[in-house]
């Protein structure tokens, strides 16, 4: 009777977006007389930070400070249509739509500025909310002044419309091939576990991962997705089930008393490395990072359990009971 150490590895490709029937998202941007910009989306921030990264993308594309952008994620009563936050698609789809809308709004802004400054719009530079004539930086104004002039002097709107559409891709009738996603992110996880052959308990000691995520818009939030995904993956691998004896419905879990998820006491050592190979079609090279972070830890842990005690338990979650039954079966086979 002993505790056995094991190490396992697993790698995944993870698609960004889907295209069943086409996958569009729209965005609207408009400028208030204050020089502040509102971004109107029907997309949803689940807590992963969509509003923050979209404000960063909009600020970058408009040429204004981050603080002057407000992202309002309402619904389709107050904003144009979005397919939703799923398939690790939101930053990619919404970001692209927002860049398109920002470009139109920026052009409208510079047209008013050109009139106000008696310069050609293509000669104007807009950076961090300041506007000046290329080669003559003393001829300058700012977004606030231009927004005021647009509203109260010229009667013009400063706004932009954006959409990103991933076209529908039908299956090739001969080969079954299709173009199912926009780009793919990649992940590899190494898991280290300790398996007790007397109790069947599994302790995850360490999860070390490398993630290739295109370009990071907000590295701290990418790290947040990675760390939380590692813990959620561990949870799927070892703990979570509604029907522990499915298809039998016995011991159905009704509350957090039986439906076990990790607590602050269950966290392994987590290490991660982020690699950036920008995608050709994401906003600034983005790929989706959200969901894959919970995927690679699961097979890595299952492989580590095999490495530790020589049994494959592929029915999730890998509970102590399943480990003990597999060990018993193995010992009967060898005797």
């Amino acid at each position, binding site marked *: 009777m002993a505790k056995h150490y094991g190490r396992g590895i697993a790698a995944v490709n993870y698609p960004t977006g889907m295209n069943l029937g086409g996958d569009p998202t729209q965005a609207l941007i408009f400028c208030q007389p204050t020089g502040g910009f509102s971004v109107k989306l029907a997309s949803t921030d689940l807590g992963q930070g969509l509003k923050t990264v979209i404000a960063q993308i909009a600020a970058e594309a408009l040429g204004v400070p981050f603080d002057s952008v407000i992202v309002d994620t309402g619904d389709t009563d107050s904003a144009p249509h979005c397919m939703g936050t799923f398939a690790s698609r939101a930053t990619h789809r919404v970001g692209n739509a927002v860049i398109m809308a920002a470009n139109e709004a920026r052009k409208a802004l510079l047209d008013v500025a050109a009139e106000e400054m008696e310069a050609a719009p293509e000669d104007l530079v807009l950076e961090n909310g300041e506007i000046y004539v290329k080669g003559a930086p003393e001829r300058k104004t700012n977004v606030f002044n231009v927004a005021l002039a647009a509203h109260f002097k010229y009667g013009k709107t400063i706004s932009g419309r954006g959409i990103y559409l991933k076209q529908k891709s039908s299956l090739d009738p001969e080969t079954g091939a299709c173009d199912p996603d926009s780009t793919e992110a990649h992940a590899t996880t190494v898991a280290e576990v300790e398996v007790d052959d007397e109790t069947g308990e599994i302790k995850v000691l360490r999860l070390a991962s490398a993630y290739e995520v295109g370009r990071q818009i907000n590295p701290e939030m990418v790290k947040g997705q990675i760390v*939380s995904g590692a813990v959620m993956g561990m949870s799927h691998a070892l703990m979570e089930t509604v029907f522990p004896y499915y298809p039998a419905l016995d011991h159905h879990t009704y509350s957090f008393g039986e439906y076990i998820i990790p607590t602050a006491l269950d966290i392994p050592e987590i290490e991660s490395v982020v690699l950036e190979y920008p995608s050709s079609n994401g906003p600034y090279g983005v790929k989706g990072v959200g969901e894959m972070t919970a995927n690679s830890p699961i097979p890595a842990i299952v492989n580590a359990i095999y490495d530790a005690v020589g049994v494959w338990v592929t029915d999730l979650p890998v509970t102590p009971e399943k480990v003990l039954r597999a060990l018993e079966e193995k010992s009967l086979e060898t005797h």
Partner: protein
Amino acid sequence: MESITVTFKLNGKTTAVAIEPLESLRTVLREHLHLHATKAGCGQGGCGSCTVLVNGEPVLSCLMLAALADGQEITTLEGIGTPQHMHPLQAAFFDRFAAQCGYCSPGMIMAAKALLDKNPHPNRAEIAEALAGNLCRCTGYVTILDAIEDVVTQMQEA
């Protein structure tokens, strides 16, 4: 059932409220007093998102009858900081990105405050132990533990 009046000290202020006798403290805080920082999670004492302090002790307000709060001292998240003057724990959660959806954060912060009020220099394992009754689905806890450790360090340096 006839309503009864309970009187307690809420975030430093004497508060009297008419309640139904079987209402939970959480219901009274959220629905009678409109203090929504205290979250309604599982309603079974399993998630910790409704944690408040009663006489300085962390209590699951979904399991405590509001009638039992009579004469007690109650502290909710609203009582420890404001957006302009954040409690050091709130500031540390902000700086460390220790929230994603944020639903567990008020309970986490109140549980952490109860710990630090008793033990200003806990190690990471003691912090994790104190938060073990508070579930978080989004963060994986790491940033939450980092944030609380930051406050411990600040208190040591102060």
